[in-house]
């Protein structure tokens, strides 16, 4: 993957297929400590202890259309090759939490990339699911909770209607820019 944001998109698809209704995506950057962490947490069907162990195996997948499952192993590798860490906590029936930590100054660091596009597309293409996106950089923080948007919009304007998607795109871009302060990594 050319951007970590693409991995986030990929990993979140797993949450969606796990039947999650609420997905938390958190991207936290600490420039002083030279750390970037990405967390994806869902309330989907979760995994057994055995499944958790096997998802990091590229030759394990629950899908039937092909024999390999590269999403999670790739993400893990990308975190570990910067000297970071990776973990999955999951409980059957409750949900899964995945946390990857990166060391941005490392030569093998893959840029975060366009996380705004990722979040935007996840929201607009899954209008029945709720997302909480949290972007933190040092002292600055931005939180977008689709449940709040839904409350304002009511029944008449779904999250994927043209007017709302255009607003959402602009809103996400502006708020992210404020947090990132114009010089994203």
């Amino acid at each position: 993957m050319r951007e970590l944001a693409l991995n986030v998109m990929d990993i979140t698809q797993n949450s969606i297929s796990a039947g999650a209704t609420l997905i938390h995506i958190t991207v936290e950057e600490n420039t002083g400590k030279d750390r970037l962490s990405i967390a994806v947490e869902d309330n989907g069907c979760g995994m057994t202890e055995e499944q958790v162990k096997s998802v990091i195996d590229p030759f394990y997948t629950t899908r039937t259309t092909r024999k390999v499952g590269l999403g999670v192993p790739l993400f893990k590798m990308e975190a570990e090759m910067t000297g970071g860490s990776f973990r999955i906590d999951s409980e059957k029936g409750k949900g899964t939490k995945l946390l990857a930590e990166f060391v941005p100054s490392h030569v093998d660091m893959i840029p975060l990339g366009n996380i705004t596009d990722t979040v935007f597309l996840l929201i607009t293409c899954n209008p029945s699911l709720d997302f909480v996106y949290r972007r933190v950089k040092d002292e600055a923080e931005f939180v977008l909770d689709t449940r709040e948007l839904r409350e304002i919009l009511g029944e008449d304007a779904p999250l994927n209607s043209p007017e709302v998607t255009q607003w959402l795109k602009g809103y996400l871009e502006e708020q992210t820019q404020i947090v990132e302060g114009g010089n994203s990594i």
Partner: protein
Amino acid sequence: MKSLAELQAIRDKARMQVGLRSEGNAEFRVQVGMATCGIAAGARPVLNAFVEEAAKRGLQNVMITQTGCIGICQFEPVVEVINTKDGSKVTYVKMTAEKAVRVVNDHLVNGNVVTEFTIGANS
């Protein structure tokens, strides 16, 4: 600067138009393959182009959604356009954002399948 107050305005406008559209009334369903294979091949800009172009044109009869791996990873990014009225399906392969814009304009707006982007013309 976009604000949450603007959302209320959008809602009020939508309320007035509520008679004009209803969910589940979409004429076309656009499915973009967003599994690891699709994303690695560049599906995100394609999906983005569909969402943006459809929003720009205010297309109310189109539903854009994502799907998993359908097993033709070598043809990713793959986009399926399903006509919900008659159930027919067109599969576009090796898509790009530019091609996506053309599919919106030719297929979704004017009803003409872009034959040169389909799997039949590319395999």
